[in-house]
C-alpha cells in the first residue's frame, strides 16, 4: 500500500474554487478522514485523487508515481485506486460475485477466483455471492462496494461518505467493521465525511476542510483537543469559546482559570469543551440550567451564566440537575483550553 501526497492541488468549477491549494500527505496503511461541511470541496478532492477530475494546478503522487500534475495525467483506470461511492454504484446487471470480480478481468482465471473469494470472505458475504445488488440490504451493499474496491488490491482506497445511506444503528456497527476490514487489508484509505463522530472514531488522522482549504491536520485527539481555529473547534464537536486573559501557563476567564497547552499572554479567546466544565447544585451558584439533553451515558446541559452568556456542560449521567435549578459552574480539574482566533 502506497502513500498519497498532494502538493498545492487546486480545482475550480467556473468561478468556484472547489479545492484551493490543498497539500496533504497520507502515509502507507494509514486511514485519514477528510472532514468538512457539505460543499467544502472534500468530494472534489476525492475525485481528483481518483482521477475523475483533473487538477488546475498542483501535483498528486501515489507512491513515487506522479498521477496528476503539470507533467502527468494518468487516467483513472490506470491509477490502481479503489473507490467506494456514496450510493455504492454497484453494477445492477452483475451478481455480487461478478461485481467484486469486475476489476480483476486481466488476472488469470484462478487468481481472479481466489481473490474474489478471499475478498468476499473478508467482508463476510461469501454466502451472498450469487445475489444481485437489488437483493441485498443497505449494509450488505456497502460491504460489497468495499469488497469490489479492495479486490484488485489497490494502492489506495477512497471512501465517499460511505455510511451516509445507512441507518444509525447499522452505521455504528458497520463503521467498526469497515475499519477492521481496511486494517486487515492493510489499505491506505482516505475517507470523506461530514460526520465528525465518524471521523473522530474511525481515522488515524483527520484533515479538516473548509471552503476548499485544509485548515487542520492531525490525530483525532489533537484536532479535538487543540483545534487550530474557532471554526475548527466549533465544527469538530461542541465548544464554548470564552474570552480571557492569558498569564503564562494559565488563562483567566469568567468561568475560572484554565491551563493553557502552550504559554501565552494578553487578551485571548480559548476553546473549552463541554466536558471540561463541571457543575454542582448551589442555591447561590453562578448559573441556571436552561435546557437538559439526556443522552443515556451522559447529559448535555445548557446553562445561562450570570454574565449573560450560554455555557454548554457535558457530564456523566450519574447525577442529574433539573431545568431551572441554580448551579455553580467551574473548570474541571484537568481542563486544558487551547487559544483560538
Amino acid at each position, binding site marked *: 500500500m502506497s502513500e498519497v501526497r498532494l502538493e498545492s492541488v487546486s480545482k475550480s468549477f467556473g468561478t468556484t474554487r472547489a479545492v484551493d491549494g490543498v497539500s496533504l500527505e497520507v502515509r502507507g496503511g494509514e486511514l485519514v478522514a477528510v472532514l468538512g461541511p457539505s460543499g467544502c470541496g472534500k468530494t472534489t478532492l476525492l475525485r481528483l485523487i481518483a482521477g475523475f477530475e483533473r487538477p488546475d494546478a498542483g501535483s498528486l503522487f501515489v507512491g513515487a508515481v506522479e498521477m496528476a500534475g503539470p507533467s502527468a495525467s494518468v487516467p*483513472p*483506470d490506470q491509477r490502481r485506486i479503489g*473507490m467506494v461511492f456514496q450510493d455504492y*454504484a454497484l453494477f*445492477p446487471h*452483475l451478481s455480487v460475485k461478478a461485481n467484486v470480480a469486475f476489476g480483476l478481468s486481466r488476472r488469470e482465471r484462478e487468481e481472479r477466483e481466489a481473490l474474489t473469494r478471499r475478498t468476499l470472505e473478508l467482508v463476510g458475504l461469501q454466502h451472498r455471492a450469487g445475489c444481485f445488488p437489488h437483493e441485498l440490504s443497505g449494509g450488505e451493499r456497502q460491504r460489497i462496494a468495499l469488497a*469490489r474496491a479492495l479486490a*484488485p488490491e489497490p494502492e489506495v482506497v477512497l471512501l465517499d461518505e460511505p455510511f451516509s445511506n445507512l441507518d444509525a444503528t447499522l452505521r455504528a456497527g458497520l463503521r467498526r467493521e469497515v475499519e477492521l476490514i481496511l486494517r486487515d487489508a492493510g489499505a491506505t484509505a482516505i475517507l470523506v465525511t461530514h460526520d465528525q463522530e465518524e471521523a473522530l472514531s474511525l481515522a488515524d488522522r483527520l484533515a479538516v476542510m473548509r471552503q476548499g482549504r485544509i485548515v487542520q491536520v492531525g490525530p483525532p485527539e489533537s484536532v479535538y483537543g487543540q483545534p487550530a481555529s474557532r471554526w475548527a473547534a466549533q465544527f469538530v464537536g461542541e465548544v464554548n469559546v470564552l474570552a480571557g486573559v492569558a498569564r503564562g501557563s494559565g488563562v483567566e476567564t469568567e468561568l475560572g482559570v484554565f491551563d493553557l497547552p502552550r504559554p501565552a499572554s494578553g487578551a485571548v479567546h480559548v476553546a473549552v469543551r463541554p466536558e471540561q466544565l463541571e457543575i454542582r447544585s448551589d442555591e447561590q451558584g453562578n448559573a441556571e440550567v436552561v435546557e437538559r439533553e439526556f443522552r443515556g451515558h451522559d447529559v448535555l446541559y445548557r446553562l445561562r451564566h450570570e454574565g449573560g452568556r450560554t455555557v454548554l456542560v457535558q457530564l456523566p449521567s450519574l447525577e442529574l440537575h433539573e431545568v431551572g435549578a441554580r448551579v455553580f459552574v467551574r473548570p474541571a480539574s484537568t481542563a486544558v483550553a487551547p487559544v483560538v482566533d
Partner: protein
Amino acid sequence: MRRLDGWALATIVVAVLVAGPLIGLPLSFVTEGGKGFTQFSGFLPDAVRNTVFLLLGVGAGTVVLGTGLAMLVTFCDFPGRSWIEWALVLPLAMPGYVFTLFALGALPAGGAAIRSPLGAIAIFTLVLYPYVYLLGRAAFLSQSRVLLEAARGLGLSPARALLRVALPLARPAIFGGTALALMEALADFGTVNLLGVHTFTDAIYRVWFIAFDRRAAMQLATLLVSVTLVLLVLERLARGRARYQQLAARGELIGATRLRGLPAVAAVLGPLALVGVVVAAPLGQLAVWAAQSIRDGLLAPEFATAARNSLLLALMSAVLVPGVALLLGYGLRSSRSPLATGAVRVATIGYGVPGSVIAVTVIVPLAWLDHRLDDTSGSLLGVDPGLILTGTVIGLFVAYLVRFLALAFQAVETSLLRIPGELDEAARGLGADRLDVLARVHVPLIRAGLVTAALLVFTEVMKELPATLLLRPLGGDTLAIAVWQATSESLFRTAALPALLIVLVGLLPVVLMIRLSGRRRAEKPVDTEPALATISA
C-alpha cells in the same frame, strides 16, 4: 475546455456525413436567383393547413391513447393484463398505408368516409400510439414506489398521486414518444397519398413527379424540416435541464390496483377492441384477399423478388443503424461538449424529413462521388466499374441511415441516460478503460435498448416507401412498393399478400422481443431495462 476525445470526434464525423446533405437543403432557396415559391405557390396553403391540422390531431390522439393505456397497464391490475400489456404493442407492425389499404377496401364506397384529414388523423393515431405507450410504460415502470407513497403520505389520493407525481416524472418519455409519433406522421407519404390528403409530403411528391421541379420540392422539404426542428427543440425544452439518471430504485415495483366489476370489463374489452380493429381485422381481411388473389392469379409477377429484397434490406439496416446510433450516444455521453451535443442533434433530424427528400439530398453528393470514382478508376486502371454508389443498394442504406438514425438513437440514448455516471467512474476506478466500460457495463445494461433500436429499424425499413421508391436499383422493388402501387390502382386483392407479409414480418420481431424480455425480467432488476424491453410475460 475539455480536449476532444476520439468518441466525440467520431460523433462529429458521423453527424457531418449523415446530416451534411440535409444541411444543404436550404440552399435550394438561394441558388438560381430568387424565384422562390412561384412554381408551387398553389400547393402551399393547402399543405400548411392540412399538415398543421394533422399534427395537432395526431399529437392529441397519441398522447391521450398512448399515455392512458400505459397508465392502465402499469397502475391497474385486471384479468389478462400481462397479455393485453404486450398485445397493445402489436399495432407497431401495422404501417399506415397497409391499414389504409384495409380501410379503403373494406369500407363501403371505396372508403369515401375516410378520404379526409380527419380520416388520416384517426388512422395515424391508431397505428402510432404505441410509441407513446411503450416509452410511457417503461418510464412508469422505472419509477420508485417510494415516490408515489411519499405523495400519498402528503395527502394525495391515488389518482392525484398518479397525476402529480407519476405523470410529471414520465413526461420526458411521453414527450419523446409523441415526438416520434409526430415525426412519423410528418414523414408519411403512403397514407396521405392514398387518402388524397394534400400535406407537405404529398405536395413534394406531386411537385417532384408531376411538375418535375426538384428545386421546388427541396424548398418544400426545407419548410418541413423546419417543423421537425421545432418539434425536436420542443422535446428538448420539455426535458429541461434535468438529467434523468436514477440509481437502482431498490427493486421496489409500483403496486397495481386491482380492478373489479365494470371497470375491469372495460379494461379488458377496450384494449382488445383497439387491437382487434388495428391488427386482427386487417390481418383477417388481408388473408382473405391474399387467398383470393392466389386462387384467381391476381398476384404481381415480381412478388418473390420484392419479398427477398425487403427482408435483406431490413436485416442489414437493423445492424447498421443501431450501431451508428450507439456510436453517437456514446460519444455524447463521454463528452457533453456543446459541439458533440450539437452534432448529434444535427445527425438525428433526418427522421422528420420525408423519405423522398432524403433520397434526393443523398443522391446529389453520392452521384457526384460516383462519377469521380468512375472517372478515376477508368483513367488509372482502365476498368469501368459503373455507378457503384447510386446504382446499387449502398445509396439506399445511406438514405435509411439518415432517415432512421433518430429512431435508433432515441432508444439507445434513453437507456444510456438511465445509467448513472457513477457506474462509469466505478468501472474506470477498477481498471476498465473506455472500451471496457462500453463492453462490460453499458452494452449489458443497454442491450434491451439496442434490441429495441434494431427492432424499430427493422420494421421501419420493411414499411419504408418513398425513399425506396426513388433509390432502389433496377429490379429492386420491395413489398412496400408493391402494396402502394396496387392500392393506388384500387387493386386491393393484388396488394393484400405483400401487405400481409409486411405486417407479419413486422409482427415477428415484436413478438420475439416480448418473449425475450419476459424471460429476462425475472432474473434482473427491473430498473435497468429500458424502453420496450420491460414488457412482462
